[in-house]
């Protein structure tokens, strides 16, 4: 049980949650979205600069939340830069499969996101890890709706 917790709250996670990368406003943003988990109060706003070829040139976020959601947002922003819209979407699918434990038949390389895979042992926390991603996907798809994880 303590091992599960240590696998979840690895140093990398704690570090990202304390010192989130790409935290702040993005002047050059041309798309953005807001994500909220109404049940726990987590909320974040994500801004993105998508170039003419649908490549994510830059991405930043602000918000508040638990260590998992902040760390997930922080690591995500690091990974999204340079990806095309569809690459981002497919990375999210791989990530989601990993954290929900639905990836038995997928062994996609999710790189640094691996540190978040401990979440799968904590079903109630999966939403914390995926909220930033839902928000990012909404932003790059220029969806109007506010994202929620209900």
């Amino acid at each position, binding site marked *: 049980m303590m091992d599960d917790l240590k696998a979840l709250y690895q140093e990398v996670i704690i570090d990202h949650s304390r010192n989130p990368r790409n935290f702040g406003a993005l002047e050059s943003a041309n798309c953005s979205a807001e994500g*909220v988990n*109404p*049940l726990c109060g987590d909320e974040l706003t994500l801004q993105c600069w998508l170039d003419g070829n649908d490549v994510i040139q830059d991405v930043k976020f602000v918000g508040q939340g638990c260590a998992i959601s902040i760390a997930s947002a922080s690591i995500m922003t690091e990974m999204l830069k340079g990806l095309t819209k569809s690459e981002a979407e497919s990375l999210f699918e791989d990530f989601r499969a990993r954290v929900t434990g639905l990836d038995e038949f997928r062994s996609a390389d999710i790189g640094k996101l691996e540190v978040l895979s401990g979440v799968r042992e904590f*079903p*109630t*926390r999966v939403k914390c890890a995926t909220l930033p991603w839902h928000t990012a996907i909404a932003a790059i798809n220029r969806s109007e709706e506010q994202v*929620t994880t*209900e």
Partner: protein
Amino acid sequence: MSEAALKTPTEIQSGNLLDIQEIRAQFPILGEIVHGNTLAYLDNGASSQKPIAVTETLERYYATQHANVHRGVHELSDRATEAYESARKTACKFVNANRTEEIIFVRGTTEGLNLVAESYGRWKLQPGDEILVSEMEHHSNIVPWQLIAERTGSIVRMIPMNDNGEIIQEDYLNLLNDKTQIVAITYVANSLGTVNPIKEMVRMAHDAGAVVVVDAAQAAPHISIDVIDLDCDFLALSGHKMYAPTGIGILYGKGELLEAMPPYQGGGEMIRRVSFEGSTYADIPHRFEAGTPNIADAVGFGAACQFMWDIGIDEIATHEKELLDYVHECAERYEDIRIYGNAKHKAGVFAFTLDKVHAHDLGTVLDRQGVAIRVGHHCAMPVMKHFNVAATARASFAVYNTHDEIDRMFEAINFARELFG
């Protein structure tokens, strides 16, 4: 009368493979002694009894799973949420809806119909708009429409029925017009047993641009419900009439309608954000489930669906149809029995009066012989008015009823006849 004796040859001859005695054994209350006689419970239209599978589910829920739902990160809250949401999935399958979010847990049919009337009605109804309500509706599918009509200046119109207790389809077609916003009809009429041709009536309503709200309270225990095939817009039912606990039922609504509808009750669970400057609401289904839901009974509802599936809904219907045929057959022998509801398609309900014995007195005489039937207006006063009768007696069937229980009812009727000779 011994329990063993109840398995009459009729049951065996029937060709229906259900072992009714085995089913009866799952309902402890059927062994109750009432005024010295074994209970013959023929009041299932009012509320069915509950199998052990359902009551044990409640017990297990409280002994191992209970906490509040949706709000906790701890294990019990997770178990409770899981149990509750998987009951929603079961309910979704039970009515064959497309998406689980289209299922809202409510107290029962009455609350479901009120929710639609208030929320959809307030959103859509303009002064002069029309709501069509059939003559054979239960009060729960009349009064909510009268209340919202009064508030919105719209008009409730009655779709008449004929003396067999069937909706007059030409009249229905004539009533539909471009002011018709809502058609509220029952799938099965509780006071008559009539099974209405919902699918066709929905098609006609949609052609006229109206939505259809189906009261499935009496259908759910007997008919396998398919909201996609019916193409109805809303459908409400009560758990307590289909072997589930009291206090729980579901409202099905088409996703695109529910998503556009304003909230009904306000409170915890149904919000996105609350501040004194204004609040925003959660997505469906939570928007319509304000406050702590009836978690345990929703889980019990899931168990009741499973109970019905395990027996087979068609098998239940076949058994009940046999009982209904048998009761009609018996009734024909008596000239002083008048039957209400002679629709071509009928389910589960035998409503009648006995000349010279008021229904209320009949109910008392039967009760003393352990035979429980309902007497009165059955919350369908317009039906009573149609037939110009103050009260009728009604026997209504569930999967555990037997031919023997029907025989006992007729014996008791004979006694009443003598008493009032």
